[in-house]
């Protein structure tokens, strides 16, 4: 889909840019949804959670939270909380990146709890507190033991973090 046709689609469904600067996706499974999603979570019927980068951010501004859309395909109908965590890939073992924050926005319109619907959208927030080029691993799970086998619940991001102007 071209940028022009995406724009026409956005206008057609009455999408506005929110204060966070994030385009609102259309509910349901139809439409060019993947174009506005930064990430996608797929939960298979056995509750194995996979995470995929669709249009991940390549730049962030230091100390500034930015919001992105996460599309969730929930074939298991789970209603548990979806959790995202950030790991520092440069450290041995599974050590969380204390300089990077990732999470699902919790407010009146967005919650980390899955609804059980086959398709839903979550607003997520990313923030990096260190400047420069940073490699971070984002991992997703929906409760104990739901991470998929073989790294498939994880994506690696390389992000250029600029100093706040």
């Amino acid at each position, binding site marked *: 889909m071209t940028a022009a046709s995406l724009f026409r689609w956005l206008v057609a469904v009455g999408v506005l840019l929110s204060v966070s600067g994030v385009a609102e996706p259309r509910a349901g499974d139809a439409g060019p949804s993947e174009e506005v999603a930064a990430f996608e979570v797929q939960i*298979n*019927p*056995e*509750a*194995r959670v996979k995470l995929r980068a669709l249009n991940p951010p*390549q730049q962030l501004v230091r100390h500034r939270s930015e919001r992105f859309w996460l599309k969730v395909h929930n*074939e*298991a*109908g*789970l*209603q*548990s*909380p979806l959790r995202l965590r950030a790991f*520092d*890939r*440069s*450290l*041995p073992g599974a050590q969380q990146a204390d300089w990077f924050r990732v999470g699902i926005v919790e407010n009146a319109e967005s919650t980390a*709890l*899955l609804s*059980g619907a086959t398709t839903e959208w979550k607003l997520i927030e990313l923030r990096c507190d*260190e400047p*420069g*080029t*940073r*490699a*971070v*691993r984002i991992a997703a799970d929906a*409760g*104990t*033991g*739901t991470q*998929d*086998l*073989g*790294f*498939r619940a*994880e*994506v*690696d991001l*390389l992000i250029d973090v600029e100093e706040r102007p």
Partner: protein
Amino acid sequence: MNRPTSMLTCVGVTLLTLCCGRLLTAADWPTVDAIDPQPAAAELRRLIETAEALGEPLAASVADGLDDVRQADDATDAAARLQALLDPLCGLAVVLHAESGPQLVLPQRPGGRGAIELVEQGWRTVLVKVVNTDRLRRRLRIESPNARPLPHAPADEVDARWMSLSLYAGQPASPSLTGLPVEYRFLQIFSREAGEQQAVLECAAPGPSSGHGDSSIAAEWQFRKGTAGWSPANQIELTTEEGSLLVRGTGDDPFMISPLPKPARAGGYVLRFWARAEEPGVGQLFWQTEQRPFPDGGHAVSFQLEPGQEHLYEIAFTAEDTLTGIRLDPNGVPGTMRIDWMELASAERGRDWAAATVPFRTRPSQELLFRVIDDDDRPAMACFEVTDAHGRVFPPQGKRLAPDFFFQRQIYRGDGESIRLPPGSYTIRCSRGPESLPEVQQITVGPGPQEQPLELVYRVKRWVDPSRRGYWSGDHHIHAAGCAHYENPTQGVMPPDMLRHCMGEDLKVGCCLTWGPCFDFQKRFFTGRLDDASQYPYLIRYDIEVSGFGSHASGHLNLLRLTEQIPPGGDSKNHWPTLGLNTLRWAKRQGAVCGPAHSAIGLTRLVDRLPETEGLDGPGGLPTYGIPAFDGIGANEFIMNVAHEVPGPDGSRVPAVDFISTMNTDRTAEWNMWYQVLSAGLRVRASGETDFPCITGERVGIGRVYVKLDGPLAFDAWCDGLAAGRSYVSDGRTHLMDFTARCERAGAVCECGVDGSEMPIAAGDTVAFTVDAAAFRDTAEPLRAELVVNGFPVAQQQLAADGSLAQLTFEHRFDRSGWAAVRIFPGGHTNPIFVIADGQPICEPRSVAWCLRCVQQCREAKMPTYREDERATAEADYDHAEDFFQSLLEKARLP
């Protein structure tokens, strides 16, 4: 064999010399000046993980360098340290440019360019350095004319096509370049034969912004949202299903057509598609150009169909002028074909491709013959993990097909079977399931040809053999498709593959459950009896897990010993009931043995607590009176189902649920659910499962149930024993056999699983319990075996974890009725004996209240998952369950 550069190689080089922007010969080895230390270390870490996943670990010195890179002084230092570690390991480098073509660079070794070492009939990985100073995030492609397929190859190219190669882009590597100025990739190369060879390697990172207008892909067809431009033209029907194009030819001249999204210039092309044709025959490809807008016999090429199997079809042709469309005749007779994807690629290489001729040296491999003898002197199947001195796993994991599973390090081989290994020293870890004592052997494969194959003799030694006491191990939940299994080239794996894994783990019964993925392929293996692949005493049978369809959202169900695989109203998975109890009604009518799968999922998040129970939980929260969210797919609707009886085969009412699955999820949560329903007076038994390869792909039989039978192993009797609880659940290294209760005063003896496991006594009687226990651990620490009564530990004994068998005895005075069992947390648990004092039922008020509150919580969570036409039934079923527990509660509170 010293092979001269092949004709094909020469042609490839000549063409590339004429066409390509960059041809590399002796360029300097590329380096990068600066990378931030953090992403440099992260890149190294990912490389180490990828190498591990491929079974080709990097040298320990590389892993040791992780700290050095991370602690570099600055970006310059980090770049230098990273490259110093990895560059000496590289067989190739690729230099990418955003505005011009790439470069391929071969390393200079002392004494000239060294050949890349390969192994005969095996795969090796070659580390490739990618210098990407423009920070492109495109997909890197490395191909070779020497790796083209042999089917349909011109006769004079057969010798030259000696290799296969693929650039590894699976997890934990990223599918596209990360954008780091330098990164490293693994190129996997297979060699057909030993000797000196050469091959042309070609590379590109084509992207939409390359600006050359000569992308090598002219058209792509994916079928996720329709036929992607293909139209039925004659005697053909086109539909799509699950991302595939289903083609049905209805006459002798079926064909379909597709225009190209935009005209493509004249030249050579290859149409590639991944398909499965069901009938033999010959297909044809026609192409249309601006000058010849209608297909004709002069613009057609035929191809042989490979019926009954997935196949990559590659059909080359040349368009004399601008190409506008293609026509595919899938066969010359009526038939069906499923096409997963198609692409039309230019056979020529433009400016965005580079090439180099690379020397290789393939070492010959030798046959290693396995001799496997069980401790009864019979030939057997066993598990072998073969690694060389560099820690590389054989056969290479990244290129395995069944019966070897790519997601495991080990393979399973029987007596008289073999593998091929290149010269070298190998460590082979041998085992035959958790009841065997693993042993390690070293072998050396010499360089020269051998008259006799090398032999590895593995005599199985066991520390325990429960089958000699009549206990037959089983895993009631394994899969031949879905999760870690592949869907191509076959949709999952076949019954003999699953049997091999069961035999190699000495797992006597494997319940192979067909579920959502590949359902319509795998359903053919259901027969309502043992699979023909079974080899006594190793039995496999195909049944169903309701997962990915039907009532899955309220908790998955294992349905064992079905006589009908699919409910009336359809022949697949889309018409099943959404209410689990409706599924159970259908299954129990057949005499099936049923229970929820992966029980703890949905029970670990507590959202409430039973009033006035603070401080009353058992040790470690087992049992707990916290109320789970019921937000998952484990034993969720189970709490409603256990309150129901449904018609059995003869119409008499039987419990809707026979067992709860244990041993593969959070042990506290799964056992807590079991304990609470037992303490409420219900008589659900525990069984053990793995849910292979979903919960884990490590091996089958990680969670097990050992069922005692009086005679030889038979599947029906085994299921009956499972439902009767004449069994214990185990991780395979914890055994609790012949759990028995005795009451001297009452003169009563009760063996677990016999006569309903019920033991009548008088209130105040003391009951003695015995169990024959054995466990094997790597630690010298003794294990704690506990007698559990109504969910709480009341006595304990120590058990040495050295594999020795010991009879443990416990005593408990029963002032009221209760269930009793022995556990060794988290490795094993007996099923319960029900001690009935003065004829009064087991009925612990707090447990009954917990069950009642859980039914309410589950109703709230799961009602939206039921189809509208089943809601009324669901409401009535939950009402019944609430009434059932309410009634028990009232009885329990009566003085």
